[in-house]
């Protein structure tokens, strides 16, 4: 096996390598701390592989260009942070309604508003789920290391192409700016998913046809399939509809094509949970502290386990309930004033759930988690 390429990279750079590996050939973005390096690395690498980079006039233009490029045929990505993600919400909703695959990286920073541009936070967790208006179903994935950032960005593209929908990568300032020694996957080593192409003739082609798994084949521009795309609620031909019998068909298609296949989306890391009485649930950089604290606790014989969510949305209700079935107590560690915890409380009303929050701009430390474990035990 040829040696994998060894690189010392920060998270933001690793994200671009992952995206390119997944087939990303179009990036449109706008500078915003702490995500700007994603744009800078894209600007440098994309021309070398015949890809295209453009810095747009704002974040709204960036996501618009990404969706336009994806509809025309290229795998596309943008990267931003909280304030930019807020500006992108309408067009993320447009990508959802028009079933356009694309990846939006949100390198989370302190909020709200301008907040703490150079400081870490996970306070956009719920925005990734409920940001766009309307009945929107989100897919959001979250790495916790630089190496993870490569594989999670690849997974984000695969999910976007598989489900024909926008996928958010929830990074944060710590992972984005930490440098770690990683090995890039070899060509062909990881599975890359591409959108399904139509087999019907252009005459019979129905742009948003109902299919067994709810995902319609998607041609690129210039392949003889001329069809209409609109953000207005539309029928299976892509024509605007106001009919009471057609509107639910579209909305249910958008929801069920994701909700009925969550097993292809869910990804959870489980440590020491077999006999755990206390479970710590976390994602992203908070999960790093949780995992280390669990090791420390185990060394002194405490029956503690850790659950790291790689897929935040859709929330893995059933899996988590099953995993934490035996635990009496659950700690939810997050870098915000309590967001993930509302989901845990919703699915485990019977458990004693304790929140471990940090929202002063610094990363949760293993020591803090260990102290919380002692409190709870």
């Amino acid at each position: 096996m040829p040696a994998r390429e060894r690189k010392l990279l920060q998270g933001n750079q690793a994200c671009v390598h992952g995206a390119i590996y997944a087939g990303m050939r179009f990036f449109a973005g706008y500078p915003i701390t702490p995500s700007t390096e994603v744009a800078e690395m894209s600007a440098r690498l994309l021309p070398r592989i015949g890809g295209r980079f453009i810095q747009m006039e704002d974040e709204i233009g960036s996501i618009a260009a990404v969706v336009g490029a994806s509809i025309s045929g290229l795998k596309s990505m943008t990267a931003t942070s909280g304030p930019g993600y807020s500006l992108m919400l309408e067009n993320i909703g447009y990508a959802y309604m028009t079933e356009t695959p694309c990846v939006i990286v949100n390198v989370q920073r302190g909020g709200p508003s301008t907040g703490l541009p150079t400081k870490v936070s996970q306070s956009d967790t719920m925005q990734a789920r409920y940001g766009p208006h309307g009945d929107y179903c989100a897919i959001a994935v979250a790495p916790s290391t630089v190496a993870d950032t490569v594989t999670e960005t690849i997974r984000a593209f695969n999910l976007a192409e598989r489900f024909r929908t926008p996928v958010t990568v929830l990074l944060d300032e710590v992972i984005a700016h930490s440098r770690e020694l990683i090995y890039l996957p070899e060509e062909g080593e990881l599975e890359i998913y591409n959108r399904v192409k139509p087999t019907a003739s252009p005459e019979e082609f129905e742009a948003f046809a109902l299919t067994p798994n709810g995902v319609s084949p998607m041609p690129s521009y210039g392949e003889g399939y001329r069809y209409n795309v609109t953000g207005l609620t539309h029928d299976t031909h892509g024509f605007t509809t106001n009919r009471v019998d057609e509107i639910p068909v579209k909305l249910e298609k958008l929801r069920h094509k994701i909700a009925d296949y969550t097993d292809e989306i869910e990804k959870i890391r489980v440590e020491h949970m077999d006999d755990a009485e206390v479970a710590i649930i976390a994602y992203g950089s908070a999960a790093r502290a949780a995992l280390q604290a669990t090791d420390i606790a185990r060394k002194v014989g405490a029956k503690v386990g850790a659950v790291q969510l790689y897929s935040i949305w859709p929330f893995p209700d059933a899996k988590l309930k099953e995993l934490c079935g035996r635990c009496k107590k659950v700690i939810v560690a997050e870098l915000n004033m309590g967001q993930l915890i509302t989901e845990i409380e919703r699915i485990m009303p019977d458990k004693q759930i304790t929140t471990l929050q940090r929202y002063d701009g610094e990363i949760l430390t293993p020591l803090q988690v260990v102290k919380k474990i002692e409190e709870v035990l």
Partner: protein
Amino acid sequence: MATAEKAKQKSDVTLHYLRPGKKFPSVWCPGCGNGVVMGSLIRAIDNLGLSKDEVVLVSGIGCSSRLPVYLDFNSLHTTHGRALPFATGAKFAQPHMKVIVITGDGDALAIGGNHFIHACRRNIDITAILINNHIYGMTGGQGSPTTPGGTFSTTTPYGNVEKHFDPCSLAAAAGATFVARSTVYHEPQLQKLIGQAISHRGFSLVEAISNCHTYFGRLNRKGDAVAMFDAFKERAVPVGKASKMTEEELEDKIVTGVIHNVEKTEFCDEYQKVVDAHMGEK
């Protein structure tokens, strides 16, 4: 071909470009200029001999933005004010496509103003057809950036206290390399200018002055569609003649024709040179 024969062939050429399966007539009010612009666009594309597959019509939100769905091209009906960045993505990703944006005065100049000036500055090979009816029609007659001072709309019930700007001079100042204006009355000229704009390599703007008799006309006593067409005929001044007229003389006049036309390097071409120079580097 005898002109009559050509006349016959041209009169139903529009019918060959209508989108199969789409219900006609259009959603627009009887006599709305949008339909005239749609006819001009079709005939311009037909004259240029473009294939249906290579044309991408991108629009935002508003009456004029309902145009693309009616035509048998790749059509992209996006969000309000964002047709140009969506079009930028589509064009930049597939530079061989002919990307044409259909937008209105509100869509392009109010919410879309920031994207408008940057698309011009970038000089990306996109043709923007800005159908200017001086009002927000879709939402029922509110004032727009081109609603003239003193005129009435549902949000300027005491007369518009604001000034309007001229999209053509704005586009030229921002870097567009082809800028032209006509009206829905001067359909032959409009059709010719649209054809020139599409053939021009770089950002092209064609402003099509159009009638909204349902709102702007009614609220300002400009009469019905026919009356507004007549007014366009009376108010039009060719760009050559206008250059010899004073500002007062040009008050309330519509200067028609090619207003700005220069050759500059085009965005996708320049980026391709970067790709060619750095392709394969490690």
